[in-house]
């Protein structure tokens, strides 16, 4: 492995981690001032803040880890070329949808409250386990970011767990909505654990986590919660994916259009 391929892989990986957090934070932020209750409004906004905070750290590191152009992977996201130095804002606000590499689960619309909570359960369990492992990464800076984020993710997972049980094991209406959310979201969890050959070098070097290695511990966290919530894991063969390669649903395009409009209209603006 040359230093160049490792730097390329690191840049790719930091974007994947950062984009998961950034897109999740943006989606949760949409609940601001419209959640079912004031406490929940504050809770979702706080979780969004944690996610954006982690995204800033990860994208800042990505900006320092690479030259100014994103190298193209054969099957990967479109290359990103920027005429000038990279920073967290350039990476967040000037990349297009095909240049993002978050999992599709993160970008799906919020739906109703049950939908948002089930997605948070599935995703925060994944993020927490991934950060737990990355806290021991051979890359000291990734280890530092993950060591911080894992503690915050534990609160996100705890919050989603309590609500999933309350909604799933609640009224007929809340149960039906929560089950419908799980049915709709479950197929997208396959992508979380999809093998990524591009990560082989980083995984071997102890820098990154091999995605399939998280599945067992994730299942051990999520399935008991679903069982307590009287929810049934759907039996489905449909396994959408491709976010890490820049393949996204149209929902990400709309999300980015809103998130990026101010920065693109007024580059360099601060507020």
């Amino acid at each position: 492995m040359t230093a160049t391929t490792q730097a390329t892989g690191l840049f790719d990986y930091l974007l994947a981690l950062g984009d998961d957090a950034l897109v999740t934070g943006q989606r949760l932020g949409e609940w601001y001032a419209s959640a079912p209750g004031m406490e929940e409004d504050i809770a979702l906004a706080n979780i969004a803040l944690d996610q954006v905070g982690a995204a800033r750290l990860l994208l800042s590191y990505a900006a320092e880890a690479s030259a100014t152009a994103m190298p193209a992977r054969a099957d990967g996201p479109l290359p990103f070329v920027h005429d000038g130095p990279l920073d967290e804002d350039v990476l967040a606000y000037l990349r297009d949808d095909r240049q993002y590499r978050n999992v599709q689960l993160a970008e799906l619309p919020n739906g109703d409250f049950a939908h948002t909570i089930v997605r948070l359960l599935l995703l925060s369990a994944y993020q927490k386990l991934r950060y737990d492992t990355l806290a021991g990464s051979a890359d000291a800076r990734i280890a530092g970011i993950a060591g911080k984020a894992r503690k915050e993710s534990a609160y996100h997972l705890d919050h989603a767990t309590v609500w999933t049980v309350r909604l799933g094991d609640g009224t007929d209406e809340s149960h039906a909505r929560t089950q419908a959310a799980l049915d709709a979201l479950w197929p997208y969890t396959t992508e979380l654990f999809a093998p990524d050959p591009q990560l082989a070098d980083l995984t071997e070097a102890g820098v990154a986590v091999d995605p399939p290695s998280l599945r067992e511990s994730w299942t051990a966290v999520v399935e008991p919660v679903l069982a307590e919530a009287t929810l049934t894991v759907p039996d489905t063969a449909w396994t959408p994916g491709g976010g890490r390669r820049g393949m996204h649903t149209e929902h990400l395009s709309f999300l980015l259009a809103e998130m990026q409009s101010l920065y693109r209209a007024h580059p360099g603006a601060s507020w």
Partner: protein
Amino acid sequence: MAMAGTAWEAAATVVDPELQVVTIADLGILRDVRAEGGHVTVTITPTYSGCPAMDAIRDDVLTALAAAGHRDAQVVTVLDPPWSTDDITDAGRAKLAAAGVAPPAPVSVDGGPVPLRLSVACPRCGSGDTEQISRFGSTACKALWRCRACAEPFDHLKSL
């Protein structure tokens, strides 16, 4: 060295913008102050990754240093080791309690599950008969609780 001492004293006076009864030294987010050849480097660490007070704290530290005569100064942020509520000093805990913010319990296992607590003592009347209203409070670091004995709501600094 004497200079680092005065710089530390200046930086340590900076009050947390969101928990205004404690200083950044009380909270344990002021990690280090070094003076070399007239240049002062202050190291701080965020409570939460997305803590919006960091920029304000950075500005306040530079202002405090300048007022103490240290104009050539910079503030750097480190993440490792991650901040824990265990880093809050005893004096800091006492100030928080006096201001009606229930201080955090010790963090039992680093990185393990969020420790569940049977009760948080009410900072106003001391009763253990309290309940959590919301896991997330007015800032990232606080949860909202209520005392059943004296009926007062209060903030609780979450163990992290």
